[in-house]
């Protein structure tokens, strides 16, 4: 097997004295989607935050395309520039137009010329069907539109890895579809994605592997057909029966 895009080994994370991750191993191969499932507080979001160095791990190692990014000598900003993140609450920049939100990293981190960046940004907005909102400000858009812009912002720089942190949890049910369709499209286009999600049905459709976390540990992992449809562990069955009803 080739080098995984993301390889997290034995990740430990404590908040104060409270262990949130207790030795988690997760690997994401190129062009695959890995879904993290688990109850609130199981450590999904924390794991994503440690993956792009927004949180410092207390033990373990993280490799991004073979490079140890948990090495303190690594330039964290440069690592983050290679990873796209989409947050639960969009976190768009309210003082910038939709287009400027999408092109900010291109212009200010990757040094792409303003006109070129705008061209690429508009093409991207066109793809997500929001080209006519390019000059609008984020607060004028619906939740689903904002989240699609946030996804566009995350993929504008062609990141090696995309981290999606429960990106539909803050959306109305009828808006969830448009966002998930976009993720499916990204997968088809070859993106490498690690996502925390509560949408079990969606995980089954797009994920190549599913990882079930409980109390900061991986309880079960494997293809969706196994973890979701034929769970081996009592805890997984218990969780699935509650989220799927």
């Amino acid at each position: 097997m080739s080098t995984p895009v993301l390889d997290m080994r034995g990740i430990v994370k404590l908040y104060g004295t409270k262990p949130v991750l207790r030795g988690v191993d997760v690997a994401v191969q190129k062009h695959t989607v890995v879904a993290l499932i688990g109850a609130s507080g199981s450590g999904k979001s924390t794991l994503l935050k440690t993956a792009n160095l927004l949180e410092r791990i207390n033990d373990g190692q993280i490799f991004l395309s073979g490079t140890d990014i948990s090495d303190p000598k690594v330039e964290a900003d440069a690592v983050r520039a290679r990873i796209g993140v989409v947050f639960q609450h969009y976190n768009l920049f309210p003082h910038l137009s939709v287009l400027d939100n999408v092109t900010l990293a291109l212009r200010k981190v990757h040094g792409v010329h303003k006109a070129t960046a705008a061209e690429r940004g508009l093409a991207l907005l066109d793809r997500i069907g929001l080209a006519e909102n390019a000059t609008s400000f984020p607060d004028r858009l619906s939740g689903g539109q904002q989240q699609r812009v946030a996804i566009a912002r995350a993929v504008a720089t062609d990141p090696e890895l995309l981290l999606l942190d429960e990106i539909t949890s803050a959306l109305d049910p009828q808006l969830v579809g448009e966002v998930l369709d976009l993720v499916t499209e990204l997968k088809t286009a070859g993106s490498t994605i690690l996502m925390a999600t509560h949408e079990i049905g969606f995980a089954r459709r797009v994920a190549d592997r599913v990882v079930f976390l409980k109390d900061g540990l991986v309880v079960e992992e494997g293809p969706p057909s196994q973890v979701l449809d034929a769970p081996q562990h009592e805890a997984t069955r218990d969780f699935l029966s509650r989220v799927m009803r």
Partner: protein
Amino acid sequence: MPTDRSGEGAGLYGLPPTSQLELDRRSVRRRQTTRSILVSLVSTVVFAVVMWVVLVNSPGWEVTRETFFSPEYFAAAVPLVWDGLLLNIRVLAFAVVGVAIFATVLASLRSLRGPVFFPLRFLASAYTDLFRGMPFLIVLYLIGFGIPALGLTDQIIPVELLGGVALVLTYSSYVAEVLRAGIEAVHPSQRLAARSLGLSHYSSLRLVVLPQAVRKVTPALMNDFVSMQKDVGLISVLGAVDAVRQAQIQVASTYNYTAYIVAGLMFVAFSWPFIRFTDWLTARQQAREQIGGLV
């Protein structure tokens, strides 16, 4: 933009005719508006008339009018005080730029995290504590008389420069605190999102946090600006002939106080456009970036 349908005929845009209920509500609202306008108008007029009557019937009114509101002295004082005001404007322009830079640096230092930056944070907060506590007049004396006393240069340092430096030192400490409050009011998730894009600490501060912080504290910043604009007048204690000093000279040589009124009005006239401009700017930004409503 939401379509405003108030006051238009029924049945437009393919909608059913406006209901009687809505029409009644509109007329109630119109009556409410008319009534509040009338109440405020009448109370304002009554207040003005009462003030005027009290003023005109006070025993010393004739003398007061002659000493403070004399048209001849007013006309004579305007060009002289205006000359002085030009100095105020020059010092103010210098001080505004100085404060903007220095206060932003101070606020940024205070918002640094991590134990490595403790000395910088400590120095910045010690500075703001010191200069916010110290009366401006004392800073003015210390800088205005202390710096020349050091004899660093053979040339005479212009007092307006010394006064400008004193203004920058004092007002930067106020403005830095206002900016810091603004920086802290920007939700941490904004910083997370900025850093996740690969922006450095400095870039996310400059491109994401500060622009939002400044928007949040614009009224407070304007407050400091107007206050500073008035305190420029204090540099007259160093001997600079500004608008206040010019007025003082006039008063001293004519025994008529009208020149002070002239100076006061000029300060007000000078600050007014700035105040209105920021109000307009803030309103426009809000209309553009936020979703409004009735409340």
